[in-house]
């Protein structure tokens, strides 16, 4: 299975798609993520969420699309330092086709409370839509959505926020990948248990103990607007990008 495809838009099965540029993942998704979808990339720490999200953005930028990387957990300088270790990442795209934005600074300049008021939620969503429009972004990575959801607070508000986020970005034609942190060893698709119900897609990253060794895994749990494989794959994070192969049945059985 070749692992890298030129990321761009396609319309496999009559559905406009945003390719991830990771050939095996696009193949699982029957051509890519349906355009405008909000996809949760969920998993515990160290499962490869940020790397995979960054690679999709880089691949899209290589194909001429514009993207925004919104960091809620790390300073942008740190993200860039880490990104420079990957060969798929082209420093020249920074500020041109990929715009890195520090959420904390942005929210501070908007004078939002540390725990959002209902008005703050509106302001944050409006700012995000404005940023996507200004940067002409067709791709957005939010790393992590959990970081914002903690500021939103209660599960019912998180649900509403996630729903509005998906709807507003979808209307702009922007395909969004939002990383979601889950506790290690706990089977969960999101932090608050509500985000997955309103998101269009869930890609679950995890660890699997096979004969005493930890394998990184990927499984597409849900993706609205397309048929897709629900099989579990084993992934490797290399300097050249994410590599995927099917998980052997023997590993699943623990043999």
């Amino acid at each position: 299975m070749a692992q890298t495809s030129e990321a761009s838009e396609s319309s496999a099965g009559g559905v406009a798609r945003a390719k991830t540029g990771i050939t095996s993942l696009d193949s699982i998704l029957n051509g890519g993520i349906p355009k405008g979808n909000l996809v949760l990339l969920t998993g515990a720490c160290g499962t490869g969420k940020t790397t995979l999200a960054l690679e999709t953005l880089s691949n899209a930028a290589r194909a001429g699309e514009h993207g925004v990387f919104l960091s809620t957990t790390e300073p942008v300088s740190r993200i860039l330092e880490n990104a420079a270790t990957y060969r798929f990442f082209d420093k020249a795209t920074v500020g041109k086709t990929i715009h890195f934005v520090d959420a904390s600074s942005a929210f501070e300049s908007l004078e939002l409370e540390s725990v959002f008021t209902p008005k703050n939620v509106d302001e944050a969503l409006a700012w995000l839509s404005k940023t996507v429009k200004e940067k002409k972004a067709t791709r957005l990575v939010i790393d992590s959505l959990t970081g914002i959801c903690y500021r939103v607070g209660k599960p019912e508000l998180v649900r509403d926020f996630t729903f509005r986020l998906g709807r507003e970005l979808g209307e702009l034609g922007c395909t969004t990948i939002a990383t979601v942190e889950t506790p290690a060893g706990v089977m969960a698709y999101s932090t608050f248990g509500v985000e997955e119900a309103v998101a269009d897609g869930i890609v679950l990253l995890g660890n699997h103990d096979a004969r005493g060794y930890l394998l990184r895994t990927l499984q597409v749990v849900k993706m609205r607007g397309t048929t897709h494989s629900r099989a579990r794959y084993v992934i490797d994070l290399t300097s050249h990008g994410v590599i995927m192969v099917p998980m052997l049945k023997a590993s699943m059985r623990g043999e």
Partner: protein
Amino acid sequence: MAVDVERVVRTSLEEAPPNAAVALMSDLNFYFQTMKAVVDWAGKAGKKMVYVTSTIPSSVIQQQLEAEGVEVGHLYFVDCISFIVGSTGEEKERTIYVESPTMLENIMLKVEAWLKQIGTKNVVLFLDAMNTLAMHNDEKALSEFSYYLVNSLRVRQIQTVVLSIHEQTPEDLEVVLKLVCDSGIDVHDEG
């Protein structure tokens, strides 16, 4: 009569289609000659070779081949044995290590990692050897691994050569090899 290993291997591999999987069964006595013949054939044919070793550490293979005057510049190793015997040493340019030959998915991933770097054109995969993988893995897992590996390469027009030593290959595994491979080469003493 002494068998001409180099000629038998070269002729058979030259005749195999570019996306074929070839099972190479060799007597233990001819192991080194057989392995050397495969590496030499690929080098002379201008092919890059992804060499999966679960038998001898890659550094030893390289030393032995170089001592015999065989070109090794076309080899890209997936070394599944050095780590468990504690001989990985410094990072080597053309070697990726897998911690254990039981990590079959990792072997698949590292093969893909090389293909991502060197491309898929004019590449051959050499698996050395099925019988040593059988020492570390059960038959079902190994069958599944072989089917995936060979077929995923076949669709990309990549030739696969799977070596196994006669005396150490369980009968069931021989059947798997016959099923998964398109042709076979038998290197044995004609005497």
